[in-house]
């Protein structure tokens, strides 16, 4: 090991020294069982140009080895379990339980009507209220959701896209009422509409109107809520829809480039908004391919930001990401096997250098998870963090011939696919002409056919089956939840200042009709006046129209 290497010395004196001064490592010494010290960063014998070009040092371009110089020796990833169901009060209780159990951030799941901008009493919401997440109709629900949770200390990730602006506005107003200023709030809104059209499906407005809302949020938050991540550019759902690992990277980064270009076109400053872009990837079961995928994505994004947008500031080029284990790999058969799958997938995410992680629960192929299963899922992360040792050295897989080869291959294939999307007119055109959805559908079909034919073994499903009655404790939601939510909404609507509501919605409509207006301000005003989510989205539906999904 050439510890006296000048390049290494330079990194140690700069990035590493600065980080250690600000954030000491978790322990004074990391050791193996028996006392042998664990190296912070294992390196090749010779640090040549090829090494520096492809891998470099952690916390330095091209970030292949991680975005922080000390990675998990400094601070473990954020263990962030996605949760939220039925009512705001029930979700609030679950959040406080998870925080008590040692979870370090919140992640809010909203029900589908909320995600698609319908109030709980809308006929479209029938049967869906409180089913896959919490129902939020007005600010009153949001006040209950975060009751006694200090929003200046906890970071909150919200899985919300089309109505992201409305939910963000509600969050800001709840924080205000706690005495917390917008500039103090921390967290992330998903706010990634481009993937909704090809994979996740909770779109409301057509793509161009969605891009305007997103850019408005970037702009407002840059000035007012600088610690909030304004988007989580998500490959997770693209992968869940059946894409390959390479397609996941390619389509996600292509979406990211589109957001960057749109924001630049609107006159925003790259070095102000780009550092608040976050990513969200899937961790599937092929351990080595997944670990390589994360490394490839990090390097490719840094290179694209530098080459296409002449980025220079490190935080503008760094790909920071959240990971969730792959829901589609969970089986309804022999559900305990899912704990093992999740462990492998979570390990891949950690070996790949994730910033935060959600581990799925064993029973999610059957229903929403029970509290016991959620605890085991969280414990899985804690075991990886504290017992496995993989968090004690930076990027432990680096230098493996197979891993580096795979990292290079995924980066190159993803770049080729991004270039292909560009040739076909860019992401919006490829949504409209079905190219992206078609690519994902083809990959999904092939994969499932391999399972059907037995070519691909899924333990417990097409091999190693047992006779079993699939009877696990299933989380049941009380059907009365929907009626109660509707009753509360009616009460809030009856008690608010109706004139203020009318005025706020009229102001919002006027602003929406003017292309140059930023809609954050009128939405904040509407939320304060207890306008409902459905009313606000209804006004915008009237102005922007609605997108209708592909049939065939």
């Amino acid at each position: 090991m050439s510890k006296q290497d000048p390049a290494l010395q330079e990194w140690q004196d700069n990035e590493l020294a600065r980080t250690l001064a600000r954030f000491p490592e978790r322990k004074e010494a990391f050791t193996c069982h028996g006392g042998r010290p664990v190296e912070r960063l294992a390196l090749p014998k010779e640090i040549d140009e090829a090494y520096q070009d492809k891998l470099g040092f952690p916390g330095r371009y091209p970030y292949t080895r991680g975005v922080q110089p000390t990675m998990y020796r400094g601070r473990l990833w954020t263990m962030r379990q996605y949760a939220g169901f039925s009512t705001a009060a029930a979700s609030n209780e679950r959040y406080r339980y998870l925080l008590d159990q040692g979870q370090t951030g919140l992640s809010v799941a909203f029900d589908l009507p909320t995600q698609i901008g319908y109030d709980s009493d809308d006929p479209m919401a029938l049967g869906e209220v409180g089913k896959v997440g919490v129902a939020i109709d007005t600010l009153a629900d949001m006040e209950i959701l975060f009751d006694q949770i200090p929003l200046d200390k906890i970071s909150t990730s919200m899985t919300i896209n089309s109505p992201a602006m409305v939910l963000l506005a509600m969050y800001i107003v709840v924080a205000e009422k706690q005495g917390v200023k917008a500039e103090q709030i921390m967290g992330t809104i998903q706010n990634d509409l481009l993937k909704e059209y090809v994979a996740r499906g909770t779109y409301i407005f057509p793509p161009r109107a969605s891009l305007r809302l997103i850019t408005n949020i970037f702009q407002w938050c840059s000035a007012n809520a600088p610690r909030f991540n304004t988007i989580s550019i998500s490959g997770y759902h693209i992968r869940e829809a059946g894409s390959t690992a390479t397609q996941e990277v390619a389509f996600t980064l292509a979406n990211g480039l589109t957001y960057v270009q749109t924001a630049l076109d609107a006159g925003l400053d790259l070095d102000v908004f780009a550092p608040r872009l976050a990513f969200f990837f899937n961790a599937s079961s092929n351990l080595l391919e997944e670990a390589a995928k994360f490394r490839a994505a990090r390097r490719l994004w840094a290179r694209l930001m530098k080459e296409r947008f002449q980025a220079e500031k490190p935080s503008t080029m760094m790909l920071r990401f959240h990971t969730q284990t792959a829901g589609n790999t969970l089986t309804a058969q022999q559900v305990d096997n899912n704990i093992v799958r999740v462990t492998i997938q979570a390990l891949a995410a950690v070996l790949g250098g994730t910033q935060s992680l959600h581990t799925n629960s064993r029973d999610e192929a059957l229903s929403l998870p029970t509290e016991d299963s959620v605890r085991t899922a969280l414990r899985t992360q804690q075991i990886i963090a504290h017992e496995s040792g993989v968090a004690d050295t930076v990027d432990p897989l680096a230098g493996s011939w197979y891993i580096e080869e795979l990292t290079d291959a995924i980066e190159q294939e993803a770049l080729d696919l991004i270039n292909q999307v560009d040739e076909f007119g860019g992401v919006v055109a490829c949504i409209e002409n079905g190219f992206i959805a078609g690519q994902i559908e083809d990959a999904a079909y092939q994969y499932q056919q391999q399972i059907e034919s037995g070519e691909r073994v899924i333990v417990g499903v097409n091999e190693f089956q047992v006779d079993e009655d699939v009877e696990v404790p299933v989380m049941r939601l009380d059907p009365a939840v929907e009626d109660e939510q509707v009753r509360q909404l009616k009460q809030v609507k009856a008690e608010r200042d109706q004139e203020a509501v009318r005025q706020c919605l009229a102001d919002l409509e006027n602003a929406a009709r003017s292309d140059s207006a930023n809609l954050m301000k009128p939405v904040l005003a509407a939320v304060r006046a207890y306008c409902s989510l459905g009313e606000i989205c209804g006004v915008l539906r009237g102005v922007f129209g609605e997108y209708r999904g592909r049939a065939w």
Partner: protein
Amino acid sequence: MELYRILIGKPGLDGHDRGAKFIARALRDAGFEVIYTGIRRTPDEIAASAVQEDVAAVGLSSMSGAHARLFPAVLEALDKAGAKDIPVLGGGIIPAEDIPRLKKAGISSVFTPGTPVDTIINAFREACCQHHQQRC
């Protein structure tokens, strides 16, 4: 063999249609003519398409837990549209204890995760045969 036309529908707000699309494509490969509605259709829209396209069977997919309300709602919509005779099959994340209730409501088969695709194809073929009052 007769060429049967069938409709695969996604009622409700749930956007997870990987399974629905796989089934649609596998049925197409198995010789059916398949119409896929796309996601987020109302029960009335699904029933209207089924009648308009004169399908021999309807397949419904739901992953969000809303099957208990939405599957019977599609049956009612078909009834209202005068197409009570079209058989309706369903699949998705459906707890075992819900299956008898769905069958009682009139859903002819219910498929849960891990069902081999051949089982599903056969069930559609049988449902179509019965609808046309033919022997398979």
